[in-house]
């Protein structure tokens, strides 16, 4: 038994406690320590990646011992390809966010402690495999995020933070009640109920879970109600339209470094929940509701793209574009449940769709946080201005900035050769044969995305130079180094996606088998 995953979660948590104890005046020590802690996290995640056996799709690095025996709660950690991927993403985005907020002036020790606690919550969420344990981290991530928005955000931060928190809590309570129902249904007179995600997935595969739920409650449709509770919990977090209204406010009011974390990794908590929990545990229910769910995913894709097109604020535009990108993941994972068959061909399509969804999660995390990083650099120069029409023609004065942000924008747009393309390509490749009509409608989203991203490039970077910005300084050397790793990764993943695909392949194959019953 090893304790690597526990350590990985504990390091940022303890780092946060130490940093919170330091005084605000020791600014250099505070941010140095925060960066060092997050780099240790990154090192740990890379070590994990190197020791991960990609050839098997099961849970690796397990840690399991009884925690609350009366409730059947185990302390159970482990990662498969999906968890591994998300841990790596978290580990990459956090140091970038810390660097992006290097000059935070107000209570830097609290700020950095909260960022590290958020990271600990995320690591925990992506590694815990028992509902009780997992839920603890799921909520633990919420508190620091709330305060980061509330205390360091823009003018409307109070309402934005509150709305974010309340929405997420509504989802969490629904999720909690659903899992309590599952616990009761799996309970026997001698044994406590089951919270173990892996065991629950096996129960669902054999169809026992639905019948146990019905037997325990005596309602015909209880399993659907339980499914909706869990769905709501994740749908708010991702978010799925119409549960998204907290997002534009939270993303645009949060300081940009925090938005990097919110969009880069926190939104992945919801997607991770869909893949780890909803898909394996409620395949039957998803299949029953498949058509409405696909429509929901399509609405998410198309409406958010249109909403992004209508925005005048860069951060709000990118916020809606985030919803749009995660909509493709949803489309893929719902489509993956569509046909119950063991025939080889659809299984391949499903694998492609799910591969695409996971890749898209990683890519979106990388690209979206890079984009918000660029916006934060721009804001720093413009004194907080970030309207679409506030700039114009600045490519002449800041060519390096323009070039690098352009790469990130094109990655977001899905240009072949960059990372964004691979995920979306795989999703379409998988979804098209499984649900042709849905794939067809979703292309509208791609079209609108292209329009609004190109509009952005045109309005901000091209055209006649707005004289006001004639003296706009270009990226400093330090800033170039800051954005470079992200840009390099975009190319690497765009050209050599096998780097990630290899690690998740076995996991996806296992997930597809899980869905074919």
């Amino acid at each position, binding site marked *: 038994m090893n304790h690597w995953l526990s350590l990985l979660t504990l390091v940022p948590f303890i780092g946060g406690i130490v940093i919170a104890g330091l005084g605000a005046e020791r600014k250099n020590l505070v941010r140095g320590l925060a960066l060092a802690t997050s780099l240790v996290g990154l090192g740990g995640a890379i070590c994990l990646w190197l020791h991960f056996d990609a050839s098997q799709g099961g849970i690796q690095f397990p840690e399991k011992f009884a925690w609350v025996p*009366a409730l059947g709660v185990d302390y159970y950690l482990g990662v498969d390809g999906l968890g591994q991927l998300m841990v790596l993403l978290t580990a990459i985005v956090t140091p970038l966010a810390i660097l992006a907020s290097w000059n935070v002036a107000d209570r830097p020790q609290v700020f950095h402690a909260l960022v590290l606690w958020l990271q600990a919550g995320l690591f925990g969420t992506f590694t815990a495999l028992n509902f009780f344990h997992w839920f*603890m981290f799921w*909520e633990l991530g919420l508190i620091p995020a709330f*305060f980061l928005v509330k205390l360091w955000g823009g003018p409307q931060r109070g309402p934005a933070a*509150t709305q974010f928190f309340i929405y997420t809590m509504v989802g969490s309570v629904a999720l*909690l*009640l659903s899992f*309590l129902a599952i616990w*009761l249904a799996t309970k026997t007179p001698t044994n406590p109920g089951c919270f173990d995600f892996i065991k629950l997935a096996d129960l669902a595969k054999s169809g026992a879970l639905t019948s146990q739920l019905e037997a325990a*409650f005596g309602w015909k449709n209880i399993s659907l109600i339980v499914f909706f509770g869990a769905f709501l919990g994740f749908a708010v977090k991702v978010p799925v339209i119409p549960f998204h209204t907290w997002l534009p406010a939270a993303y645009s009011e949060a300081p940009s470094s925090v938005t990097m974390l919110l969009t880069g990794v926190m939104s992945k908590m919801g997607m991770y929940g869909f893949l780890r929990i909803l898909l394996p545990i409620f395949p039957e229910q998803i299949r029953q509701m498949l058509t409405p769910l696909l429509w929901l995913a399509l609405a998410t894709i198309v409406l958010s793209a249109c909403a992004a097109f209508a925005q005048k604020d860069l951060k709000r535009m990118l916020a809606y574009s985030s919803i749009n990108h995660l909509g493709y993941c949803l489309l893929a994972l719902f489509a993956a449940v569509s046909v119950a068959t063991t025939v080889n061909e659809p299984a391949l399509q499903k694998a492609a769709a799910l591969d695409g969804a996971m890749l898209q999660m990683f890519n979106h995390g990388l690209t979206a946080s890079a984009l918000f990083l660029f916006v934060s650099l721009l804001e720093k120069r413009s004194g907080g201005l970030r309207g679409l029409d506030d700039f114009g023609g600045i490519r002449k004065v800041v060519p390096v900035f323009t070039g690098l942000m352009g790469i990130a924008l094109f990655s977001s747009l899905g240009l072949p050769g960059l990372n964004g393309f691979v995920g979306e390509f795989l999703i379409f490749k998988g979804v098209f044969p499984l649900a042709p009509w849905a794939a067809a409608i979703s292309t509208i989203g791609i079209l609108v995305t292209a329009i609004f991203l190109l509009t952005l490039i045109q309005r901000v970077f091209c055209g006649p130079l707005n004289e006001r910005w004639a003296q706009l300084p270009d990226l400093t050397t330090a800033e170039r180094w800051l954005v470079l790793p992200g840009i390099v990764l975009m190319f690497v993943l765009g050209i050599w996606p096998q780097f990630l695909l290899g690690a998740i392949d076995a996991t996806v194959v296992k997930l597809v088998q899980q869905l074919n019953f």
Partner: protein
Amino acid sequence: MLAWTIYITFIGVLVLLLLPRDNARAARVVALLTAIAGCVVALVGAMQQTNPGEVTTIVKVPWIPAIGANYYLAADGISLTLVVLTGLAAVTGILFSWNIESRTKEFFAFFLALIGGVYGVFLSFDLLLLFVFYELTIIPKYFLIARWGSTNKEYGAMKLAIYSFVGSHLVLIGLLAAWVVARGQLGHGSLDLIELSHVVFPVAFQHWVFPLVFVGFAILAGMWPFHTWAPTGHVAAPTAGSMLLAGVVMKLGAYGCLRVAMVLFPEGVREWQWAIAALAVAGIIYGAGVALVQQDFKFVIGYSSVSHMGFVLLGLATLNTIGLDGAVLQMFSHGIIAGLLFGVVGRMVYDRTHTRDFAQLEKMNVGKLVPFAAVTFVIAGVASMGLPGFSGFVAEFQVLMGAWQVYPKLTLLAGVGIVVGVAYTLRAVQKGFYADVPAAAPAPDEHPLPPITTPERIGAVLLIAASLVIGLFPSLLLNWIEPCFKSSLFERLLKGGAL
């Protein structure tokens, strides 16, 4: 050994009374030492109990043989949990009232007398003895509020006293009737809880006597719609008073419901189960909703107590092991968290700003002036919302689990209550501590508030630690509580219910 919690506390009262009038410092030290001794005895005694599932007799001697009354102290896991809670509440309550200057020794004498009575209730297994201790707590409560309170203190004190007396009279009537009926069956009068729990009262009798006794106790537990004493009493009381009221006195009511009403009249419970559950959920939602619109900081916490005690009652109404586990754990958890919340609001904020009005506090930037108070309130608020990692989560988790099994629709409503709970807590955090100060407001350094003192820090850390430890390792208490519901005492209560 546990009996010494009661004795030590009352000895402390005597010592305090003998102290010179003007020596406030000595009074504080004596009170604190007494409370710590009581708490240590409670902890050590509780850990020594090898079999928390069974009722272990501490002392049993005849008291009034003519009516079958004994001086009978005993404890099972439920008593242990609540005795430890009382010990903690006593110590932290004294730490948070370290700054009482007016008639210090009397204040602490009343305070300890209240604590002694509470220990007594939790350890009594004789109905008369339990009732005596129960009544004993009313007097100090009244004086603590009427003398050292604030805002409408006479009204709050009187309302609390009258509600308590009405409640205990309902209990008394019910218990007298039970005594008469039991004597008819046993052939001799008995007030022994264990003995009475084996008496099968006629079903029709249980149907009318159970609501009497249950409501009598539940008034003190803040059951809606008999809760109105709670917010006014909490607000009027001095900080330590509110901490004790919410922390342990409300638990007396809930404990009485479980230990006396439900154990003696299992058929009555079954008859009225739905009503208890409905009132509990009404309390959860009503308390939370009213807390959401208060302008007085302490009223928010006062109504939140009503809401959280609703979870205790809902847990009791489930009549299954998991729900009852949750109810007892919630008693502990709410005792800790409500104590902490009242400590922050009453001592750390009100004693410094002299206002609890949100409109005033919003202008003060309290979060920057006393950051320790703000952080403590945030942690307590997070615990109070029932976020995982803190004791409230495990407790409400089990209550909801138990309730799902019996009343799924009410459980969904209770879920709504949790969300409203999140909303009022956030609102309180926002208005109380982190409101954006308008530009015209004076700079923070013009209004220096006294810094947080060491006793406050220790008190807050103790309570937070307790909530965290139980939140992370609920087995520590569940190992005490859970076996109780497998014992013969609760056998009849649980036999018919879904297990």
